[in-house]
């Protein structure tokens, strides 16, 4: 379908996300600049990794990209539309439809089953019927090999299992961009590879964009491009030619 587009080189593909001169300060406990003049673009269907030392500002940047953090200077555009300055409710609807997020600390609703956790953003979107959302949720859980635990309350799952459910949840609405903050942080090699394969597959075949923060060099190396951060700066934008 979009194969012709996907085989093009990165330069020719559409820019899906653009950050321009993003600066972020924390005022407490002392005024401190976490992000310093961050500008970069991400292409549609790109599998991008962000790496850097602990505390360099990766998570902070990801929260801004995810539209949850709105107190920054600079602008953020998605598909050419400015996201900076929009109302909280607009941004919530936007996140629901276009963004999937896997947190650094795998957050699920503890009283709800794995299945319900995955379904909730889908029900909220309201694009499919509850029945269809359930089917889709099972499908996503199958992708992360969690189908058999679908009906367990999520607080009774292990850390790695919870993280995989969180990944399934991030995928439920087939979001334009999937963001992960160390999405494989709690996973063993086999599961980590599985998540990598899923990301690889949806970025290449569905044209979904992946932006992950990772400390795993192999995981980062397998993607299309690596952005390196240090002390709030982007010190390397990576080699876009890496795309096959």
């Amino acid at each position: 379908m979009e194969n012709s587009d996907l085989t093009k080189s990165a330069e020719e593909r559409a820019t899906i996300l653009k950050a321009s001169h993003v600066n972020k300060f924390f005022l407490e406990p002392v005024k401190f600049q976490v992000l310093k003049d961050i500008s970069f673009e991400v292409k549609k269907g790109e599998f991008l990794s962000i790496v850097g030392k602990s505390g360099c500002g990766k998570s902070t940047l990801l929260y801004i990209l995810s539209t949850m953090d709105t107190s920054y200077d600079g602008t953020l555009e998605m598909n050419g539309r400015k996201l900076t300055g929009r109302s909280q409710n607009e941004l919530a609807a936007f996140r629901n439809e276009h963004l999937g997020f896997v947190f650094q600390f795998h957050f699920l609703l503890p009283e709800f089953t794995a299945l319900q956790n995955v379904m909730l953003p889908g029900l909220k979107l309201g694009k499919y019927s509850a029945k269809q959302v359930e089917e889709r949720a099972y499908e996503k859980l199958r992708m992360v090999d969690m189908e058999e635990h679908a009906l367990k309350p999520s607080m009774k799952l292990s850390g790695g299992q919870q993280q995989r459910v969180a990944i399934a949840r991030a995928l439920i609405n087939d979001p334009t961009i999937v963001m992960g903050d160390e999405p494989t942080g709690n996973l063993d090699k086999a599961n980590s590879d599985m998540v990598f394969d899923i990301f690889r597959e949806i970025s290449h075949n569905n044209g979904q964009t992946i932006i992950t923060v990772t400390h795993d060099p192999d995981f980062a190396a397998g993607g299309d491009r690596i952005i390196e951060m240090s002390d709030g700066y982007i010190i390397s934008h990576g080699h876009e030619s890496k795309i096959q």
Partner: protein
Amino acid sequence: MKLRISYNIAKTHLLTKKKQTLVAMLGVTFGIAMFIVMISFMQGVNQFLEDSALDASPHVRIYKQLTSDRPSLIETLNPDGFNIIHHQKPKNEPARIKNGLIIARHIEQQPEVLGVSPQVSTQVFFNTGAVPIPGTLAGVDVAREEKLYRLSQRMKSGSIEALRSNANGVILGRLLARKLNLKAGDKVNVTSSTGGTALLRVVGVFSFGIQTVDDARGYVNTAKVQELIQKDANYITDLHIKMKDPLRAIDFGKELARQYDYKVEDWATANQAILAGEQIRGVMTFVISFTLLVVAGFGIYNIMNMNVMNKIKDIAILKATGFDGKDVVAIFMIQSVIIGLLGALLGVLIGFSLSYLLSITPFASGDFLAIDTFPVMFNPLHYALGVIFGVITTLLAGYFPSRKAARIDPVEILRG
């Protein structure tokens, strides 16, 4: 659809914290139950007192007032002068209503009037033994009095027919009869204030359940009193009027006061003590119920606040995955409403049960009131009010924590 998700989340939250939910609910339940018991009982007392007062007294009474409150002769003759009159005394005039029977017939023809009973009443002494016991003799037309006060239903012994057929008959109040140690069939001698005497035969004993009446009144035929005080057959001192709708009495009384030059008194004026008591009980009910509901409201407020704090991570996740402020408010408001509604319904149930128990609890009031259990009013309106109050309280108590939840910044929570 959207509310349905919020509802499902709210339900899960409530069900996983059953104990907390129950405690919050019981707060409302207690408040509403007490409210219902209080208001049912207070209204029952009001109704009972009003009924017994209304039952035993005329809605409107017309009589001649004998007071010194009249312009003196000198003032009428010399209105602009500087007149000082000390210690004016009542004029010697009969307490009669002129053309009383004609007026009675005239009033009786008004469509809103249930009946009129012309009476002659006089103070008498009942003489049994050495001590004369004071009382009032009401000379009545038995049939008309029956129509107004359903006398026949208030007879403890004897009958009103016996009074009608016996020119010398008298029906005594229960307490008066006891004081005089008289039973139906006995004879009693009475002396009026003007000196007339009569020998009467007791043909019955009545009880209105009101001490002041049962302790002093005796009913005889009109002619007997007229004879006792040596007056003619047209001599009438009182007109008792009953309306079809008691509430119309006040306006109707004013109308009569304009038409006739006599003192016109409606039941509300005559029973001001009862109405004042009603007002006091009303205020008390309101204050206590309000306090209970406020306390219940604070309970819910606390629990909902705790709930929001406990669920702060959930809220952050929901917001991160695209739920907006309105969804979050809905989630917590729905919880409040469920707590409020269930609590209020349970409260209504318990309130009803307690009210019912109260209404069958024996209550010894002595001779003061004709009552053997606590008076309780069962009015669906009070129950509806209870539910409405309960829900409004929980809505208010839930609103502020919900708003707080909606304002949570997800980033702050998710950063860990």
